[in-house]
């Protein structure tokens, strides 16, 4: 099964289109996003700007007690429960339940504004795939179990 990631002609990094689905009430909805494929990030997370622009009310969500160090500062976030990432593959829609999906806060732990950044697919999910480069696009390849 192959999932295609798209190379951005500005920063030349690869992004993968994903529908994020949550069964969490009252959201109970789906959101379309492009995630940066980032093997340097330990974890997958939705950026605060992608969350806010998709009307995700973070104040209705439980806090994520973990603190992460990022290039823009130390940050905590929120958890979007009962989440599933839905990818388009060459076969059909591929649903990947991820449980609690982290959403970053708009400010760092010392209350500086966090920059507007892309959401990120980190190594926690990338490691479940093999990565191939083909025809200028990156493809995530998952072996069927």
């Amino acid at each position: 099964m192959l999932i295609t990631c798209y190379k951005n002609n500005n920063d030349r990094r690869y992004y993968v289109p994903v529908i994020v689905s949550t069964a969490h009430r009252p959201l109970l909805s789906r959101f379309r996003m492009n995630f940066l494929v980032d093997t340097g990030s330990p974890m997958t997370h939705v950026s605060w700007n992608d969350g806010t622009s998709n009307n995700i009310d973070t104040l209705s969500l439980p806090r994520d007690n973990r603190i992460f160090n990022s290039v823009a500062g130390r940050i905590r976030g929120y958890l979007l429960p009962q989440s599933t990432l839905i990818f388009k593959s060459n076969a059909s829609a591929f649903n990947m339940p991820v449980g609690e999906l982290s959403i970053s806060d708009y400010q760092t732990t010392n209350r500086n504004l966090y920059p507007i950044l892309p959401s990120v697919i980190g190594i926690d999910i990338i490691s479940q795939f093999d990565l191939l480069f083909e025809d200028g696009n990156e493809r995530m390849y998952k072996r069927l179990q």
Partner: protein
Amino acid sequence: MSINMNATIEQELDQLEKDSEWLHSHYNDLVGRFSEEFVAIKNQHIIANHRNLDNFKKELENKNVNPSGILIEYIRDKRGSIY
């Protein structure tokens, strides 16, 4: 998941993939027109844009656009950026 639900998801993924491919292949053009603005993309067209996120969301509301049915992106020149 029901058959109808599957068909809906497949349609949404098709549209998302087309819009994403268009976004990333036209990004440099978009930087020239919408630098440091939020844009809403549907069917490979920009249907709303604004520099301020609150005003952008108001514009979507005024146009009766549901954010879950479009692709939203913040456009900026990312060349040379470390994140």
